[in-house]
């Protein structure tokens, strides 16, 4: 009997295999909405509808795409060196990379948030977190340049960041790794985690006119892994919600050990209450060390200041600042709907999505409907705060964004899809596969009080066969999905920069009209600026040589420099005299151990160079600026140490070098 059965089963298996091959949709995922091409086609010369700011993940930078075309508009250097612009290499930008650990040339950039007014994106600034060496950057959306970077003390892994309150009063930073606090002895056994490791969430005040950030206070929290966060809005303005995992407080093999409990938490922080305690002087000053770097648009130069103090409130001493909402299975995304009433927790290992009600939370707090405490933080009863659960929505929920019609969109990593559901009745309305394994997703304005809707972009983690293969490493894919109708429609699929995590987007109009075209040279306050060709000069001070050089189509002035000696510290201060949009000039010199400079119209940038040998070194403009760009070049003569060739510089003075090769011109 068995003998007969096996062939039958094997036959079935064979048929199955055949069936699978036969069934395989030949172009899985290529089929899109019928009108997709026209929906994403932006005619040459026409503009995209939406600015889409995309985190660069391990690239450390931020990229800017146009939607719906998916065209890459710009990569903004933020936390990582960018040799093409000189970011991190120029003397002007080196201080931006400074931290309490010294210069840090790279980071892992995960989340972005556009500044908001009344809970609506206002397009002034873009905040970006650094996950590895905890920092927050502020990018100026007039110039698309990083204007400020502030380090977060008492933190290790700034993941739960840089989310903002609805009027950009605060930008927050929650530590992913709990660690011993900076002012305590860090030389402790790792297995004393429960005793010695603490978490913090930091609130950085943002100046409403300049955007300048300052750490207002830190809350000392239980030692867990803070994951993501979002501010309350509308009725829940004044609260901030932080998801966490590892409430088990494991310090090894978190893959298993941080998934033991049925529920972790979303911590609800009443930051207005914290402000009251601070006003009463209840905060403790703590000695720490962190860098605060600011780029000045008029000096075109950054300064880095090391600061030494933060104010800390220990939440166990003030039990009405923070409440713990139990949330199933290692919540990741923590998203607040446009009305501000519903808080969505996405337990990445949960079989459902819990949606919490702000009103119920306030009532539960008032009624003290607690379920004990967690490390001194009152735990609210799950059922008392729950609006409802989306049952069996998919596998591996991660993040939720919202449209303008009361719908929520959740990304599912494991089941590789985006699921649309109704916030009100928690019914699943539609699902669409992603290729493959979505991480974050973004709806235009989808975490604000007024979502623009229309487009959703899924940021996928796995690419495999989506594009022409490029060896073992493939760029992550983004997928543009039309959410304007009842059914989601896949419109476009395109590769990205680095590894996108969260993204933000807003209609183009506001940012577009504020965009800087040139830096006004009359306002250039750089101490090394050369505000006219007649001021070009070379000055020796000991072994330091300052070259004040101008750039304008199509020459560098001076372009013949002599009297430089091996080992000199040469500073090329380049001022771009152009006052014309999109005419940067570049500067590079042979053998430079750093990078080039790209100098915007009206800007001054400095490159340091230490010549290592006796030679004539060429330099030139690297950015094709004009018909005579290739002529925009010059020479530096480098003489031996101790040489008596005097400093000289010129431009346009042809001499008969064949007759007197050794004569040097002095000025």
């Amino acid at each position, binding site marked *: 009997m068995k003998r007969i059965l096996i062939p039958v089963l094997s036959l079935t298996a064979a*048929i199955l295999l055949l069936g699978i091959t036969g069934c395989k949709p030949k172009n899985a995922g290529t089929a899109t*909405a019928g009108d997709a091409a026209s929906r994403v086609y932006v005619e040459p010369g026409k503009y995209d509808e939406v600015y889409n700011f995309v985190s660069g993940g391990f690239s450390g930078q931020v990229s800017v795409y146009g939607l719906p075309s998916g065209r890459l508009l710009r990569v903004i250097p933020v936390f990582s060196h960018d040799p093409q612009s000189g970011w991190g290499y120029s003397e002007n930008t080196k201080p931006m990379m400074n931290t309490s650990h010294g210069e840090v040339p790279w980071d892992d950039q995960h989340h972005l948030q556009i500044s908001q007014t009344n809970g609506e994106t206002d397009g002034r600034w873009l905040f970006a977190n650094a996950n590895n060496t905890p920092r927050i950057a502020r990018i100026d959306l007039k110039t698309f340049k990083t204007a400020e970077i502030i380090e977060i003390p008492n933190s290790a892994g700034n993941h739960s960041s840089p989310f903002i309150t609805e009027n950009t009063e605060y930008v927050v930073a929650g530590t992913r790794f709990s660690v011993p606090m900076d002012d305590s002895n860090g030389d402790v056994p790792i297995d004393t985690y429960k005793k010695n490791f603490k978490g913090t969430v930091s609130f950085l005040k943002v100046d409403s006119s300049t955007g300048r950030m300052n750490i207002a206070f830190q809350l000392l929290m239980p030692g867990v892994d803070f994951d993501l966060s979002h501010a309350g809005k509308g009725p829940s303005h004044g609260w901030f919600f932080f998801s966490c995992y590892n409430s088990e407080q494991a310090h090894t093999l978190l*893959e298993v050990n941080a998934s033991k409990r049925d529920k972790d938490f979303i911590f609800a922080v009443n930051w207005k209450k914290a402000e009251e305690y601070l006003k009463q002087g209840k905060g403790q000053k703590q000695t720490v060390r962190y860098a605060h770097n600011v780029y000045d648009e008029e000096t075109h130069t950054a300064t880095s200041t090391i600061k030494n103090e933060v104010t800390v409130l220990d939440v166990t001493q003030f039990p009405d600042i923070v409440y713990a909402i139990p949330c199933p299975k290692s919540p990741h995304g923590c998203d607040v709907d446009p009305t501000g009433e519903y808080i969505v927790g996405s337990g990445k290992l949960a079989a459902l999505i819990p949606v919490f009600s702000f009103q119920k939370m306030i009532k539960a707090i008032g009624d003290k409907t607690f379920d004990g405490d967690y490390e001194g933080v009152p735990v609210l009863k799950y059922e008392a705060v729950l609006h409802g659960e989306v049952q069996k929505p998919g*596998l591996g929920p991660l993040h939720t964004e919202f449209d303008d019609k009361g719908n929520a969109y959740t990304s599912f990593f494991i089941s590789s899809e985006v699921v649309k559901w109704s916030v009100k009745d928690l019914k699943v309305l539609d699902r669409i596969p992603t290729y493959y394994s979505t991480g974050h997703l973004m709806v235009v304005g989808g975490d604000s009080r007024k979502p623009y809707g229309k487009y959703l972009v899924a940021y996928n983690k*796995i690419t495999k066969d989506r594009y022409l293969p490029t060896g073992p490493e493939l760029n992550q894919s983004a997928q543009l999905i039309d959410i304007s109708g009842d059914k989601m429609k896949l419109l476009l699929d395109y590769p990205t920069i680095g590894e996108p995590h969260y993204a933000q987007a807003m209609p183009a109009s506001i940012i577009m009209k504020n965009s800087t075209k040139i830096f006004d040279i009359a306002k250039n306050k750089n101490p090394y600026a050369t505000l006219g060709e007649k001021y070009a000069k070379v000055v020796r001070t000991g072994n330091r040589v300052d070259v004040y050089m101008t750039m304008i189509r199509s020459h560098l002035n001076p372009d013949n420099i002599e009297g430089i000696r091996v080992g000199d510290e040469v500073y090329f201060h380049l001022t771009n005299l152009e006052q014309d949009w999109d005419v940067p000039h570049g500067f590079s010199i042979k053998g430079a151990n750093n990078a080039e400079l790209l100098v915007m119209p009206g800007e001054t940038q400095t490159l340091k160079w230490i010549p290592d040998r006796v030679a004539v070194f060429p330099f030139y403009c690297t950015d094709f600026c004009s018909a005579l760009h290739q002529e925009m070049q010059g020479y530096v003569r480098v003489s031996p140490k101790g040489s008596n060739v005097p400093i000289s510089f010129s431009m346009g003075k042809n001499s008969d070098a064949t007759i007197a090769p050794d004569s040097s011109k002095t000025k």
Partner: protein
Amino acid sequence: MRKLFFIASILFVAIITGCAGSNSDQQSTETTGVVSGGQENVQDDVSQKDVVKIALGSPDHTTLVAALKQAGLVTSLSNAGPFTVFAPTNEAFKKLPAGTVEDLMKDENKDKLINALQYHVFVSALQPDFLNQENTLNMVDGNDLHITVENGKPLLNGKAHIIASIPASNGIVYVIDEVLLPQAK
């Protein structure tokens, strides 16, 4: 024997229906953007096999494979994981009361089938050493699986034994001799 033929024909039907289903899916994708299939369709004969491909390649797991397909779990399990999959053999499925599998394979019982299969998957690749200790695992369907140790070997829910372990690219497959059923809480 007749029963097996029955299963086989059911599978056959499932395949045909499956095909028809995906064809119509494909047609509708032209207007809706919905297409079936994910990473299981990636052409790759070089990489290590994932948990699904391991099951597909096993003559002892045809029932499981058919069930995974019917439940629409192939895409999920072809994903990055990491997964621990407890894979009951065809013989294990046969131990279920007569008609159970056939019943679960009906379209109207798809949710039940999904739950039953998800109870066999844990997110995280648990190595054999790790399983060889008392433990409770919260499976993908949300229910707990209890592991005890008997004669130095893991016993799942006091009943199922691990026959073999097969490392996969996205996790690990444990071949088991019983279908796992969630225990009353």
